């Protein structure tokens, strides 16, 4: 009787193993069709992120993958839902623009636990163990170049204001640190005020208007993005100081590229959202083909745009014919 029971057990175990293997083979067979790539973006309410998401999806499609864009609406809870949906729906990779450097880490870890690689674009998460790779603008080096140009344009002396972006955003501080790594070497350049305007044009206008009440004698304004540079310029126009104060931005938006051509703004740092998005899609493709050793942080060069070279550029990129 005991022998009979043992034989039954062996049969049952064999059947179970066969079942597991056959279902796994079936799932592989299903995936052998078209692999799926999810694009999860912080918001589609801002043209910058629309360009990022659409470029990533278009490149992934071009590489032969089925894609879908998930909008997190700047909400980490919604972002968590998007991750769960993407994982449950069988997406094989996620091209990700996080809503929050800290708050998004758990979502990336969930995908990692499910065996789904995540490639961050433009914004980073505060973990080097979660994403497969993070493709980011080299904000620090871009602002080193901008800082050097600032020092030259100011002839190493004068009073200036710094308008920061969101204080909780890593990009804000990487830009500020890069700028100060150069400018602080020159004691003749004095920062009379440093205030946040949350990357917002109208807030920057209000912030600079109130700073000008206390410091009417400033010579320059360095802004953490181009929207704030446009707002700062408007405040200077309203105060009748637009010709006396030099404005510097960062991003490479079309508005500011045109303002540099019109000599309203002195310089900006040109970012390349399309390069970041396309690289993320290419990395996912390489991952599927077997590559696993990706750099944790891959910087994308930021280029200095001034009145001397502005004709080579258009909004968020180079003119046709240039890379």
């Amino acid at each position, binding site marked *: 009787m005991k022998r009979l029971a043992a034989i039954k057990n062996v049969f049952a175990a064999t059947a179970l193993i066969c079942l597991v293997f056959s279902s796994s083979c079936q799932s592989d067979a299903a995936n052998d069709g078209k692999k799926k790539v999810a694009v999860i973006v912080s918001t589609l309410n801002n043209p910058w992120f629309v360009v990022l998401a659409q470029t990533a999806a278009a490149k992934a499609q071009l590489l032969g993958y089925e894609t879908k864009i998930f909008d997190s609406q700047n909400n980490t809870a919604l972002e968590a839902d998007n991750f769960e949906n993407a994982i449950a729906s069988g997406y094989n990779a996620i091209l990700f623009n996080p809503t929050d450097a800290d708050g998004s880490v758990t979502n990336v870890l969930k995908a990692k636990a499910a065996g789904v690689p995540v490639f961050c674009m433009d914004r980073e998460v505060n973990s080097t163990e979660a994403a497969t790779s993070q493709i980011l603008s080299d904000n620090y080096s871009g602002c080193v170049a901008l800082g050097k140009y600032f020092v030259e344009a100011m002839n190493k002396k004068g009073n200036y204001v710094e308008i920061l972006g969101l204080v909780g955003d890593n990009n804000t501080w990487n830009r500020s640190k890069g700028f100060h790594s150069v400018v602080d070497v020159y004691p003749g350049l004095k920062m009379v005020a440093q205030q946040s305007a949350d990357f917002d044009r109208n807030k920057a206008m209000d912030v600079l208007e109130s700073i000008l009440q206390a410091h009417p004698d400033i010579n320059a304004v360095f802004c953490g993005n181009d929207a704030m540079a446009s707002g700062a310029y408007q405040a200077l126009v309203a105060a009748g100081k637009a010709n006396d104060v030099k404005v510097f931005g960062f991003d490479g938006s079309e508005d500011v590229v045109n303002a540099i051509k019109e000599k309203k703004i002195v310089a900006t740092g040109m970012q390349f959202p399309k390069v970041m998005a396309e690289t993320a899609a290419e990395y996912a493709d390489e991952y599927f083909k077997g590559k696993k050793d990706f750099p*944790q942080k891959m910087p994308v*060069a930021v280029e200095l745009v001034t009145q001397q070279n502005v004709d080579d550029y258009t909004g968020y990129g180079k003119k046709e014919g240039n890379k």
Partner: protein
Amino acid sequence: MKAVKYIIALVVIVVVAYNSIYFKKLDEVKAAATAKEFNAAQYAQDFWNNELIPNLNKAVDLSQLSSMLSADANRAFDNYSHALGIGNLRYFLVSGKGIVAVVNDDDMVVTLRDDTTTFVRTIATEFIFGNAVRDATGLININEFKNTMDFNNVSAELNRIIREKVLPQFKPVIKKGDAITFTGAIEMNKAHPDLSHIEIVPIDVKIVPR
């Protein structure tokens, strides 16, 4: 018997408690944590001594590079430029011989020997910033770094070495008409290389007999 049981239980509790709690000096714990952090200054100094200086003989002659960039820029970039990241900004390790034509506050203009062009080449003597020296050799691998600020700080430290060790060797004494040999790093935009003005970040500059 009860007393023996109590004694054994007490001994067990004492042993477990003793092995469960450790005391360490706060200074030692802090020092251990700091030791694990990336030391950009040490990394930069080691790179300078063990990688950069021994490989300066691999620098491409700037006059030859200028000719190659004029004739076939893509080939020149593919063969001689490096960069840690992706994008259009690329870096070359260059060398040359020339005569100091002008000494300015922030740089000096050099007329290269064997240079058939009229382009301006300057050696920076004030604004030593950016990633040119870190990236130009191609010897640093981005996979060595997990944090963005680590490789940014390597650039800052290499530039500090130049400001503190390289510039003082020639900047105070250099004058118009001096013959020099130099090795340095240059940045160039691959999408639209500007050959009309090339700025060299100096790594080694020597005044030589004319």
